[in-house]
């Protein structure tokens, strides 16, 4: 009895050991696969995102001119200084304007055009390519082209206005503090809406047409079908596009720099442009880093808030 028990136990142990060995082997294999697939991208992410982020954070807590070998720790002094810096608040307010108009406009235009294309408009592929073209153009090119359009000496906008008798409306669009920010924003919207079109169109193509037909049968009008069928259907894409454009609005730099350098005066200065000027033109690298951290924090908060908003919508 004892012997049989012992032999059964030994057999069971052997089977268990073999099974555990296979499980361990599978686990080892899966960890190796994880390391193989995730490792390189993780390493790159750490190297080019996390390390610079930590470096910027450290810099933001120091006084450094960008040249001296030593950096003087100053705690939160740079952040405290930001609170009383009128130029920073002006730049932030420009970013807020940018976030509102620069997010709403391309999304609205992009969504409308995507729906038109999705509804069966002809030459869908051609239009999609045309709309997407500005997205692949370098920002410098976009800035230069729109700069020519707005040029007070030979720009087509003023020429067109004068041709139709609206001489009083013609002006140096980028040199007038009342119009410069909007003028740059229009160029930015032009460069962004194509991205929204393509993303929304991709989202719309994933919607089950039976749902739309069912809504029609139930008597839903166009707005109701959009509000209760299409919009929920593209909610993940919508949140993604909203997040990308909103975060981009708070870190915008290149197109402003190319078109106005933040001018006239500080009329189109944004936080990123102000950070650049502080860090590289005025040699306040620590202060510039603090501004960069503020941009990062705002972007992070917005991104997390939007994602949580989306998740909450899903659970409902």
């Amino acid at each position: 009895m004892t012997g049989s028990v012992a032999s059964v136990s030994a057999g069971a142990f052997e089977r268990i050991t073999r099974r555990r060995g296979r499980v361990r082997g599978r686990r080892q294999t899966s960890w190796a696969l994880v390391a193989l697939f995730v490792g390189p991208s993780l390493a790159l992410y750490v190297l080019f995102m996390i390390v610079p982020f930590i470096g910027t954070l450290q810099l933001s807590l120091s006084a450094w001119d960008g040249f001296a070998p030593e950096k003087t720790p100053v705690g939160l002094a740079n952040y405290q200084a930001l609170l009383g810096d009128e130029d920073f608040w002006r730049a932030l307010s420009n970013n807020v304007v940018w976030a509102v108009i620069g997010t709403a406009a391309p999304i609205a235009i992009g969504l409308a055009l995507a729906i038109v294309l999705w509804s069966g408009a002809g030459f869908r592929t051609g239009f999609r390519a045309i709309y997407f073209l500005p997205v692949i153009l370098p920002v410098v090119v976009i800035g230069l082209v729109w700069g020519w359009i707005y040029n007070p000496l030979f720009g087509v906008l003023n020429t067109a206005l004068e041709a139709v008798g609206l001489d009083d409306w013609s002006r140096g669009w980028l040199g007038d503090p009342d119009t410069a920010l909007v003028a740059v924003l229009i160029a930015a919207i032009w460069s962004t809406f194509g991205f929204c079109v393509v993303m929304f169109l991709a989202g719309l193509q994933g919607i089950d047409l039976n749902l739309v037909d069912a809504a029609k049968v139930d008597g839903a009008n166009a707005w109701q079908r959009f509000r209760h069928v299409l919009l929920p259907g593209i909610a993940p894409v919508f949140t993604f596009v909203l997040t990308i454009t909103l975060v981009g609005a708070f870190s915008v730099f290149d197109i402003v720099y190319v078109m106005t350098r933040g001018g006239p005066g500080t009329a189109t200065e944004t936080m990123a442009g102000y950070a650049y000027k502080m860090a590289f033109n005025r040699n306040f690298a620590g202060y510039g880093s603090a501004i960069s951290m503020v941009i990062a924090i705002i972007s992070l908060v917005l991104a997390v808030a939007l994602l949580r908003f989306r998740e909450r919508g899903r659970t409902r």
Partner: protein
Amino acid sequence: MKRLSALSITAVLAIAACGGGSGPPTQRPASVAPPASHAGQASQDPAATASTAPTGPVEITWLVGIAEDPDIDKQAQAQVQEFNDSHPNIQVKREALDNDQLRTILQTRIGAGDVDLFGGDTGPGFGGVYAKAGLLADLAPAYEKYGWETFDWAKARCTYAGVLSCVPGAVEEVGIYYNKTMFDEKSFEEPQTLEEFRTIMDAFKADGVTPLAFGNQPQWPAGHQFSMTLSNIVGREGLDEKLYGDSPWNDEDTVKAIDIYFREFQEAGYFPRDPNAVTYEDANALFYAGKAAMVPTGTWLVAEITDNTDFEVGFFPFPSIDGSKIAPPAGLGGGSFVAANSDNKDAAFEFLDWLLSDEVTKKWSLPVFNTIPAQPVDTTGVEVSPLFQQVLDDLAESSGETSDFGYNIDVLTPAGFNEQMFTGFQEVLNGTITPQEQADALQEEYQKAKAAGETLERP
């Protein structure tokens, strides 16, 4: 082409030596081709200098601001190639970048030991900062070894905390180029007073021609215009007092200098419409196309103007304001620095010596780049364009005394002050702020910089 007399250029340079002290702003290419000639003890023959080259091939990296005119930049590259061909042991790799880009990457590149030689402004906002950080090599031994005869005033601009740290670039002046054909058609002479200047501009405006092609979209050109009016009103001594902190930047004279150019001229319609939206290049193009009678800028543009115009061009300094002396802003157009951590300092010094040689000056600096050296030079036999000759003559005529030169302010003032100049003058042009408010803001920035030890100290 006129032949440039050795006497005239030596006189100009000697006078500039006494009076100068500035150059173009940081946003402008500062050193397409560094300094020009020297008549000292340095080796005159490029082949001879090769004999003193370090053993083994050495590559030195030279970072400079890119030239505004692509053709001139190509010529600068060809000049380097000539050095490389004649010096097989030293190969210079010239990297020409937009000046903003240069400022952004320079510190990182130097930190990585990737730069041996670089160009930039000699003022406290650039050279002074690099020197303070210990990033510049001491060039005194090279000056001694090669016998560079740089003017003392120019060397003073390259000296930080007693250490001679750069080789001065060209001498430059800010003034007004004009279309001689247009002037002749109206029988206008070069204006000597502000009233005459206004009369001329009013006449061109009445004809539908832009009187003064001033484009201020990049912001830095305003600093030059301010330098012209303020230099005339307060003279060199008055500017010295402001630069050294003995006199405020928000006094009556400064406000007047701002008011004349940025409010009165703007309201009178002397500029292209909305100058804040007009780029420097577009403003120059207006002049080249004959749509503007004059363009206010510096002598660094002589070569480009010569290349781009098919009419005769003249040059005059900003005229007298209410009986003031004419004190055109003039001085150094940047300098060349050797990185303290360079492993190839000797090779860099040798390259600088080659650039400073008489042969290179006669072949490249004067006739091709139209740059005026910051040291005595024998220019016998050098041919220059009529416009460049006039620039030299103008410098010579207007500089009988040391006090006859003003300063290009932004080269000598700290970064925060310059930033206020650039953004503030746009706002004055727009009418967003008054000249007095801009002057007050300049004074505030100057005080901040002085408290931080960033302003010039009296030698």
